[in-house]
């Protein structure tokens, strides 16, 4: 549990089913609330429209498609997010990159910075 993250709504965009469930569970473990998970850019956009989101975990590569347009939508709304990637150096707009496999303390630290 993390007091800073309690009740915070975190959008999870990840195409790999099991990994998306892990992300949701890890958020729950930290006391946050996972929104989603979304597997595609359009699902992610729908959730953004319909739901309240404080921050997001965005996989760079969604089934072979880059998630850049979703990243742009998050920036436009001023929602902080981190990129999740298996690539050592995901090119982004300066957002923090959470490597795979996920590390719970690192996820917590990144979310605290994003929401701080």
């Amino acid at each position, binding site marked *: 549990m993390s007091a800073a993250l309690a009740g915070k709504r975190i959008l999870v965009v990840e195409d790999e089913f099991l990994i998306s469930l892990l992300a949701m*569970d890890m958020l729950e473990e930290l006391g946050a609330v996972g929104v989603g998970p979304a597997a595609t850019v359009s699902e992610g956009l729908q959730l953004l429209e319909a739901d309240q989101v404080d921050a997001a975990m965005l996989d760079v590569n969604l089934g072979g498609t880059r998630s850049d347009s979703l990243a742009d939508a998050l920036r436009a709304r001023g929602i902080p997010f981190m990129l999740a990637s298996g690539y050592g150096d995901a090119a982004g707009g300066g957002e923090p990159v959470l490597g795979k496999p*996920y590390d719970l303390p690192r996820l917590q630290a990144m979310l605290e910075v994003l929401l701080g």
Partner: protein
Amino acid sequence: MSRPPEPAFSRPAQPEMRAVSRTDLALEAASIGAFELDMVTDRLWWSDKTYALLGFEPGPGEPDKDAFRARIVPEDLAEANRRFAEQLARRAPHLSTSFRYRLPDRGERSMANHLGLEYAADGRPLRCYGIVLDVTEQVAVQAQLKTAHDSFRKMADAMPQLVWTAEDDGRISYYNARLALYHGDGADGDAWAWQPRIHPQDIDATLAAWDAARAAGGLYSHEHRLRMADGGYRWHLSRAELVEGADGAARWYGTATDIHELKLAEERQRLLVAELDHRVKNSLALVQAMAHQTFKGAEVPAGPRRAFSDRLGAMAAAHDTLTRTRWDGAALAEIVRESVGGAGAAAGRILASGPEVTLAPMRTVPIAMALHELCTNAVKYGALSTEAGEVHVSWRVDDAGAVELEWREQGGPPVAPPTRRGFGSMMIERAIAHQLGGETRLDFRADGVCCCIRLPADAGARP
């Protein structure tokens, strides 16, 4: 010795005697023969030197024209006669010829002669006079030079590179025939200028490298794209050395090697390694997620779940390090830094020191895993479980090239040896011996855990 009367021009009146003698002496000293032919009477005169050069003994009569002509290589004689007749027809005042001449005792020689021609007012030839000299050595040297030059051109043209020389200021003074691959119908304006051939994005770096090489006066080596005759660009390695010639002037001798395919292969490899890395880590993430769901259903306690996740993380971090170095092997200092990430804030109390050592890729993961287990143990039970404890990680390379790594904890709570050996000690003690042929000594000393890992010299390791 009785000789025919010498022609008038060389039988001077008294006042000119000395001057003529000096001329004769000079000709003699220079090994130059003189001759004269009266073209009205067809009388021929040779100087003593001419007799000597042409291999005849001065006799009582005239020189033997037929014997002389018989020694000239026939086609050279025919050519000389043709040119002589041509000059006479044109009333030309001079003629220079050369011919190959067979001396009975010295083989074939190269002779040159220069002669003057005099004509009567009506155009009839009156007189022919001149000199003859042996130019065999000069002709041989010239032939050698020609052969050497020809051989250099052929060799340079056979090179799979663009070969060039440039003056010190960069002006090109030579290109081999390969220039044709780059020079498209004079589209460049000046076909010899090299700067317009370089890709606009590469020109600044090229000029900087060139200026640096000129300032250092030594070696120029630079990779850039050059435009080909078809307008496309290809990657090249340009390389040149400044060398002082026999004339004392320094020139650049250079080549441009087409490395385009190599460059593309490098780029493909880079992408492939990145993709491989991505897939490896995605697979590890899947394993992590699968284990998470499995353990959740089986109600496995958080401790083992966390340990499993951390171990996967340590393995992924080791792969990350390898990918960054493109699987060339990782620096030991970096492996240590990556492996103790699990210590969190306490990582600052892990003090690493040692020389620069690169571990081969196959050694990276087991060492990283062992260090991760040591670190986890230190955080849970050892020096990093207290506020003040420290860990000293040090390594050295012995004369045989073996790497000795020591993990020494101090300032922690009193240590008791574990009652059973778990996954951690297995990775520390047995994995390194099994997989890397190394030795590990793990001591649970009361004042702190101490672990020594010795890796034998790696045949493929770089110091």
